């Protein structure tokens, strides 16, 4: 299977056109390359690891089915990010409409091994954990803005909130995260 080796290093654009031709292996490489990050993003949005696995799997299935709609194959990751974001938002809305408790199983905590901690890593962990301590609305607004690239208006529509509220939530989240980041500088 030495042709697998070449695929692991292949550009996204190459893998996308092959996958659109029906090459499952090419799509597998794309899923392994981008799936983990998108799963972590979904877990952060949903505060649930089990749900995030489902969301990312569903999203890649949608991606597979709609690959021929992707006009610029090199933009696979941002395109998948939009799909994952929409799927995660669907879950959040259906939870809200079913009056469910908003927190299910919290994402796994980082394992701290003191000997591995260096300043950069500490700052990363600090920001990561700070995100977890944010209230749900603030955290989601912030992820939609910074990770999904949504505008304030789009966030407001997605979360069914007034734009003024989104503005306030983002301001708060940003202030808090900056403060946490500075603390570890």
């Amino acid at each position, binding site marked *: 299977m030495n042709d697998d080796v070449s695929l692991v290093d292949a550009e996204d654009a190459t893998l996308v056109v092959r996958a659109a031709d029906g090459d499952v292996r090419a799509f597998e490489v794309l899923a392994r390359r981008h799936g983990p990050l998108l799963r972590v993003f979904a877990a952060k949005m949903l505060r649930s690891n089990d749900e995030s*696995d489902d969301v990312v799997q569903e999203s890649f299935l949608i991606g597979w089915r709609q690959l021929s709609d992707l006009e610029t194959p090199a933009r696979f990751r941002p395109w998948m990010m939009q799909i994952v974001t929409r799927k995660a938002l669907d879950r959040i809305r259906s939870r809200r409409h079913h009056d469910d408790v908003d927190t299910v199983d919290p994402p796994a905590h980082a394992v701290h091994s003191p000997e591995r901690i260096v300043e950069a890593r500490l700052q990363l962990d600090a*920001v990561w954990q700070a995100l977890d301590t944010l*209230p749900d609305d603030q955290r989601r607004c912030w992820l939609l803005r910074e990770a999904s690239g949504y505008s304030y208006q789009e966030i407001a529509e997605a979360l069914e909130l007034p734009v003024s509220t989104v503005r306030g939530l983002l301001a708060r989240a940003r202030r808090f995260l900056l403060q946490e980041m500075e603390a570890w500088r």
Partner: protein
Amino acid sequence: MTNDDAAMPEDDLVDGHTMEELGAYLDRDRTPRDPSIEGSPACRLALSGMQRLRELSWDAMQHRAEDDPDRDSAWISGLLDTIRNEVRSGRDVPVDHPDPRLRLTMTEASVRGLVRRAGDTMGGVVMGRCTLHGDVTEPGTPIRVEVTASIAYGLAADVTADRLRARIAEVLGRHTEIVIDRIDVVFDDVHVP
């Protein structure tokens, strides 16, 4: 756990600019240059903090993404099981058989798979798209085969394209009845081997 019900603060104002504005400015890669932002030390500080936070959160996500390979293997293998059943087979391509009473066909998807494999195993190219132009369902119709590929840096394009054409012609001749009109090779990328 939240004090969201409290009065919502307005967006922070930095030297007359809201953070929303500054964030949008950052999204545009700070172009076109806005002198009223770039000329303000407070705005520049706010921008660099925002930028750093953005980078940190991506890095943090990336780090976490590498932490749980078993979790990813589980959903990815489920995904692959599903999509394997969904490969669009395309048109039926007749395959020659010594017994004229038998009509054998191969799916277009598997023919494209053969072509990709012929290129991938040659060395020096990574195959991209493969398109079969013409009526492949009708034996004897001349078919134009069009492939895209990435070529290894340093290889001569003309020689490599000829080698690739020969391999594709060989594999199609061996496994199908397709009559090749011509094989167009487009190198749309270069990779470092």
